[in-house]
Every structure is written in C-alpha cells, then in structure tokens.
C-alpha cells in the first residue's frame, strides 16, 4: 500500500470522523482535519510504528479572507524513518478559539505556535506561552492578516513637518 493511502487508512481506523477532506497538489498530500480531532490524529501519527511522523517541520497559518472559515493552520510533518512529508490543514472559524496545542507531542510546537499567534493572531488552546515574539509587547493587531494594511512612514519635508510630527508617537513636552 502506498504511504499516502496508509496514512488515511490508519487515521480512519482510529478516528473515523477526523478527515474532512483531502487533496493532492504537485505531489503533496494535504489532509483537512477536524479541529477538535487534531490532537488525537497528531498523537497517532507520531506514535504508530508504521507511520512515525516524529518531526514537526513547521506550523503556519493562512488568512483566507473573505472565505469562511477565515483561517487555516497548516502542520507540516515529516517522518525521518520513512522519509515522507504530510500536511495537516485545520480550518479555524474563531481565531480566539484555535486548535489544541501540539507542544506536548512535538516540543518545538510551542515555539512555532508563538509565531503564528504573534503574526496571524490564531491562538492555541493549552499553549500558555503565547506572547509577542517579533513585535513590541504593546503592539495592536496581527500584521499577516489580510485586513491589516501594509503601512508606510510618511516622509517629513519642510512644508509638512508639523503635520507629520503631530502624528509621531514619541514623548512631547
């Protein structure tokens, strides 16, 4: 049996309702996993001796605006013994109530989820290290979201010096 089918079979055996959808694009297998089944599926993928997805490469989020559910979180798994990659994709309706953390399955999960929370604003249940990582602590918003403007610094010339200066956030006397 091909590895792609084996993964699907194994997951279906353990949790029949976990896989919502799947696709194959450019030879990459993607499984859409139901959000509340993610943890169970991940544990199975890591521990099953025929699968052994022991390496979590990456966690990243997509903002699919204007679609609903708006957010999708990708888990890129790799099996070092079997040399196989797999992508789990979880659709998240409410970014405040995101998927369960995978930090206790692969230790690096906590660290990767911190980045997703900081830049995309998808939270992870059970990860209590979520804090501003790249951005200053008092930053508002999550810059990788599609409704967050790219932003720029207005150039100060002599004719608009006062105008631009009034908007600058620094202590004035």
């Amino acid at each position, binding site marked *: 049996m091909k590895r792609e089918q084996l993964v699907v079979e194994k997951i279906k055996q353990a949790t029949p309702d976990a896989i919502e959808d799947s696709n194959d*694009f*450019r030879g*990459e297998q*993607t499984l859409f996993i139901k959000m509340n089944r993610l943890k169970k599926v991940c544990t199975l993928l890591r521990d099953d001796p025929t699968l052994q997805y*022991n*390496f*979590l*490469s*990456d966690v*990243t989020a*997509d*903002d699919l605006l204007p679609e609903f559910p708006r957010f999708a979180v*990708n888990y*890129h798994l790799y099996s*070092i013994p079997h*040399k196989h*990659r797999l*992508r789990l994709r979880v659709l998240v309706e409410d970014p405040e109530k995101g998927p369960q953390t995978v930090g206790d399955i*692969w*230790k*690096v999960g*906590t*660290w*990767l989820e911190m*980045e997703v929370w900081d*830049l995309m604003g998808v939270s992870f249940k059970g990860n*209590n*290290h979520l*804090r*501003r*990582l*790249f*951005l*200053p*602590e*008092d930053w508002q918003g999550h*810059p*990788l979201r599609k409704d*967050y403007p*790219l932003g720029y610094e207005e150039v100060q010339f002599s004719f608009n010096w006062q105008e631009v200066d009034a908007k600058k*956030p*620094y*202590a004035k006397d």
Partner: protein
Amino acid sequence: MLTSGSDTIKELTVEELRAKVGTGMTIEDAEEHMLLSMGPQHPSTHGVLRLLLELDGENIVNLAPDIGFLHTGVEKTMESKTYTKALVMTDRLDYLSPMSNNLGYVLAVEKLLGVEVTPRAQVIRVILSELARISSHLVWLATHALDLAAMSVFLYCFREREYILDVFEMVAGQRMMVSYFRPGGLWRDVPEEFEPAVRQFLDFFPAKIADYEALLKNNPIWLQRTKDVGYISADDAVSWGLTGPSLRGSGVDWDIRKAQPYLGYDKYEFDVPLETDGDVYARYRCRMREFWESLRIIRQALDKLPSGPVNISDRKIVPPPRSELGHSMEAVIHHFKLWTEGFKAPTGYVYNSVESPRGEFGCYIRGDGSPNPARVHFRTPSYVNLASLPQMGKGVFVADLVAIIGSVDIVLGEIDR
C-alpha cells in the same frame, strides 16, 4: 527597558519586565537568583539576540530567548510583490548564505508553477549552493572560534570567504545580496572565468581546511571549551525540531539532499557526516567534515557541467533575451507583461524545503491565481533551532552558553525575518 504606547513612554519595573519577557520561564528562586539580560548588544549572540538569564551564581538556572529586534515583516511585504520581485527579500533572510535562500524560494515557486529548470541551470545551482554552504560555514567557524578566544581562525576564515564572495560577484554582480536564482532558471549564464576560478578554489581550499584543523581539532583549550558542553540527545533534538549539522551532531541521519533529493542531488556521490556525541564538539566536527563533502559535490558538478540554455523556454515565466527585443514584437510584449504584471501562478499551496547550511529551509507559498503570492511563509532553520537553546543551556556556565550559541549557528536576519 522602554516601551512606547500611543502617546506615553514609561520605564518598566523589574516585576513587569519579568512578567512580559519571562512568560516562557518561571522564576524559581526570586530572592537568591539574579536576572541578567544578555544582549541584544552582545558580541557573542551573533546579532541582536537577547537572552534573559536566571543565574545562580555563575550557573544558568533558566533562560528565555527574546527576539524580534530585526523584524522587518518580510512575509507581509512579499505578499505585495510579484513572484519575481519578491525574490530579493529572500537574500536578506540568512545574509550569510543568500544563495540557499534564493534556492529554497525559487524551488517552491517552480513547484507551484509545475516547471523544472534546464540541466545546466540545475548543476550551476548545485555548485553555487555548495559554495554558499562553504562560505557560511567559514563565517560560523570564524565567529565560533572568536567567541571562544581563538582569534587567528577568524582572520584565516574570512580570507577564504572573500574568495567565494568574489566568485559570487563574478556570476551575479553582487557579493552578498545576489538574487541570482530566478524562477525558471538563473539571472544569466555564468561567465567563462567561472569554471577556472572554482577549480582554483578546489585546488587551494583543502590545504586551508587542514590549517583550521591544525589550529582547533586537538587544541586542548578548544577541547575543554567544547567537549561535553551543550549536550542534547537524539530524541530531544528531533522533538525540538533541530535540523542540519546541529541535528546530525546528535547522530540523527537526516539530510534533505539525501532523503528527498532536489536539483539532482541523488546523482552526486557524497556522504552525510554524522557524530553521535551531541555536544558542541560534535556539531563542530559535523560542520568541518561538511567542507569536504561540499568540495566533493562541487568537483563532480564541474566535471559534468552540461552546455545548453540556463533558462526554460516558457516566455510566460522567463523574460526573452535582450537580443530578441529588437526584431520580435512578441518578445517585446512578453517583456512588457513580465516586468509590469509578472506571471500568474495557479491556485494552490506548496511547501518545499532545501538543506541550507543551517538546516531545513522551508518555504510555504499559497498562490491564488494572481501575480502576487497570497501567502509566503519561511520555515527558517535558525528560528526553529533557537527553540532548543533553553534545553541545551540549562545548568551550564554563562561562558559555556556562548559556546552553545555558536555551535547552533544562528543568523538573526532569518530568525526575525
């Protein structure tokens, strides 16, 4: 430490600082232990990395990395550029091996487009990425040795790196920010002098490696500073997501060039250096032995460098050569369309990873049918490798932490992105 609100600036108290930065660490004994901020302006953190240390005398009880001082929003910026223009952002991630970043990005774009480059372009890409690996390892060795007070190694390594940067300048016109690999091939073919220059490098470099080995390999000071320091077991290394030579120093045999070959790496004969000790010295040995393997690959690649075009013939992706613009209306149209609008990539998402000098450099791209990527994400090896630093650094002396940071080989440009 200062924080800027919308209109006020106030200084944080120590308690607030602990609460904000220290959420990743628990203060174990607040009365006796000292909280020390190492960096961001510290020569041994290889950039603007700040480490918050909880110290019991000279011993580290706990540590938490604080990053983001170099954050420039690369991923966000790339969403507003075409696939070709976004390429220049990738040079600036890992500024010690821009070729590897270019490679990781263009391979992902090519995967999304479903094209494969010509054999000549593939071989040139292999040669240049292996040269980039050598130059990056040279900077690693130089700074790692400098951190541990071996000053002369630094000078020798930078001398040889200069030669490689000259080769990069010869092919790309730039020493560091090369942007040489383009979706569909290369910026242009390598000049005639390229092959003799690289062959000359192959001739003189082995003696230089012997020099570095003579300076460090059996040096008692070096051995004392690196042996049994910063140990991480194979299981921990995998779970913490370590990749590259840092992972192979713990005895895990995983090199993407071997496991999932790209650019025809399966047609080259080379070994993957493995060490089993999992300490700073083992990671040092792994990288030193990689010099030899890279040289082997470059030699084989030069020997079989095929002739032919370096770009694919699809004019919807690669602009026409300058010579055609004078007499072909179609070429002018393609040129105009490519440089004003860019090419459109299909809807879908791909993840492609390459073995950069630091480990797995992954690139996730989601296309939505427009000329701009809808989402680009980089899985940068330095960022993920940093996660295991608290694991390796607990219980060691502050001076040993310097050795550990050097052995993981981080580049802050790619951590903060």
